[in-house]
């Protein structure tokens, strides 16, 4: 199996890297990966969320799961600070109200959908937040389930919503409710 070289732009500079490797491996090959950085290689740890442009279009991706192509301009995003509230889960009512109490900012969503475009998993983030606002925990659970908590959405939200934490809490409450309903 031959592997040709491809030219990519990493963090503003051009590099020739082996073809057929992931963006994350390309960063390492170019000496741009800090030693001992988080890498699961499976797309579940959320540590490699990145943005690249190709043929004039911008894409959000997980760098460990995306193959380099010729002409890619890659802006990798290092891990995001994770914002999350303090609460006692064991005494919370299993409703969307609880989520809105811990994360009142969800009500200020303006529907700009920047979060949707930033999500490397293609999740309907704005829809999941809307579900919380509309007291539809189950819908939030279903639509946000594949989240890997990378924080890309949160980093671009103009209203300061901590979507990963809000969606996680919503899912936890729904799951707890389901476990109590077992016949």
């Amino acid at each position, binding site marked *: *199996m*031959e592997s040709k070289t491809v030219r990519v732009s990493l963090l503003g500079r051009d590099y020739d890297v082996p073809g*057929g*490797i*992931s963006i994350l*491996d390309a960063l390492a090959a170019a000496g741009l990966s800090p030693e*001992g*950085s*988080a*890498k*699961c*290689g*499976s*797309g*579940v*740890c959320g*540590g490699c969320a990145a943005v690249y442009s190709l043929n004039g279009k911008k894409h959000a991706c997980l760098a460990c*799961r*995306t*193959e380099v192509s010729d002409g890619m301009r890659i802006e990798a995003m290092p*891990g995001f600070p*994770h914002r*999350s*509230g*303090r*609460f*006692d*889960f*064991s005494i919370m009512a299993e409703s969307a109200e609880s989520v809105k109490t811990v994360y009142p900012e969800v009500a200020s969503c303006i529907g700009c959908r920047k979060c949707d475009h930033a999500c490397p998993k293609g999740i309907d983030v704005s829809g999941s937040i809307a579900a919380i606002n509309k007291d539809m925990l189950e819908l939030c*659970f279903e639509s946000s*389930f*594949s*989240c*890997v*908590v990378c924080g890309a959405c949160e980093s671009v939200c103009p209203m300061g919503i901590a979507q990963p*934490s809000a969606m*996680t*809490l919503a*899912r*936890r*409450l*729904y*799951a*707890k409710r*389901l*476990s109590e*309903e*077992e*016949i």
Partner: protein
Amino acid sequence: MNMPEGYVLSVRNAEKNRERNMLSIPELLGDREKEELIKKHHPEYNDSLYNAIPFGKSAGMRVNRELCALLIEGYRGDNINPSSPMPKTDILVIGGGGAGALAALAAKKRGMRVLLVTKLRLGDSNTVMAEGGMQVPLGKNDSPDKMFADAMKGGRNRSDAELLQILARSARDSERMLERLGTAFDRDENGHLKTVRGGGTCESRIIHSGDRTGLELMRVLCDEIRAQGIETLEYTALLELLLDTEGCAAGALLEDTLEKKVFPIRAGAVIIATGGCGSLGFGGFPTTNFSGSTADGLAAAYRAGAELVDADSIQYHPTSLAFPKGHAGALITEKARSLGAALVNRNGDAFVNPLETRDAVTSAILREIAEGRGSGSGISGFVLLDTPMIDLKNGKGTVETELPNLFGFMRELGTDIRTEPIPVFPAIHYQNGGLKIDGSCMTAVRGLFAAGEAVGGIHGRNRLMGNSLTDIAVFGNRAGEFASDYSETKKDLPLTLSHLA
């Protein structure tokens, strides 16, 4: 994706024999046959990969060469003055995966001051990558005794019976604890937990969350750690443990890897939850592991005087993705085999029962390749996991519903697993052995507790699918509780670094 030579031919043979293979499944091996297969082909019996540990409580025990070197290495920098004032906590948890998180939560619940340190981020661990699920003896016909018997047999009768009893008997309570924390396990239309059957088990008892159970678990645990305000230091690595003048674990020497600063911390008790060793890359094999799995805690604990058990026993997951090389070692969950996918060689023949224990399946795959019935050779060889059988056996749509992560991942690489088999090869997956503990999770060093993959004795010489998540749920929690008991009555004594001399 460019397929290596041999893939197309073996796929054609697999297709030709698919119907036959679906009906005629190889028998499970008898005990003698299995022992012989493993002795002949499993890397565990390849002496060239091992060295004897030259010092310490387990001197003379053989371990993989790379691990042996790590045990000897240790911190060589400036030592801290052990009598200078330093920050103190009650319970120091080292490791931010499932076992560490649960230990921290248990200790916090007991009112302890807890500090959790992790050399990467909270949640970066092998736990987050676990896919198949968690064993819980739920079914009408199931019981902790059956779960115990399966695990004891699967571990080749080398498990510590007391620890394994604890695992089997505490599994249900642990599962309920996780549900109370809001962990979403898959349920059927009546709200009952769905289960699958793993290799080496007599009952279907593995509960799961899609095919990424570990991700769901860590999302919940990390959220809870933050919700409770448990102090966490990320990018903080363990260098050495600190002992007091009575030889009890009393803290650690840590390094902030971002600021490059070394600092000591005193603790009433220390819990090692640093996971496995797959990233040490034994024998050139690929690994399914997270990048940080380098046995840090095991090595530091050993140098502090802990004992090891079965530390030479490494589980190779039989089915990791063989290519493309950039993804070599990516885990292909055993659940695919639970759902009926067969393992097939280049001639299209099924050569082992898919639900044999992992040590047997790994050995069988390596045998096929060594004897010329695999594609390729040596570490670059592969056999096929015939996933097209899954929808044929269980109905159209099964792959997408039950293996969404695998389906999506392979599709991104250009393979539709509903109609195309996956090329697989064994990868280093799990550290079966490790630090020896008693029923209270304490090691041979007083005040030094351990839980999770870093621990040995529970799974004997081979862990069954689903028992690792049960292990961290049961013993992570247990370590937090017993460490709290110990710390409550522990008096502070002067510290010493003499064990590092």
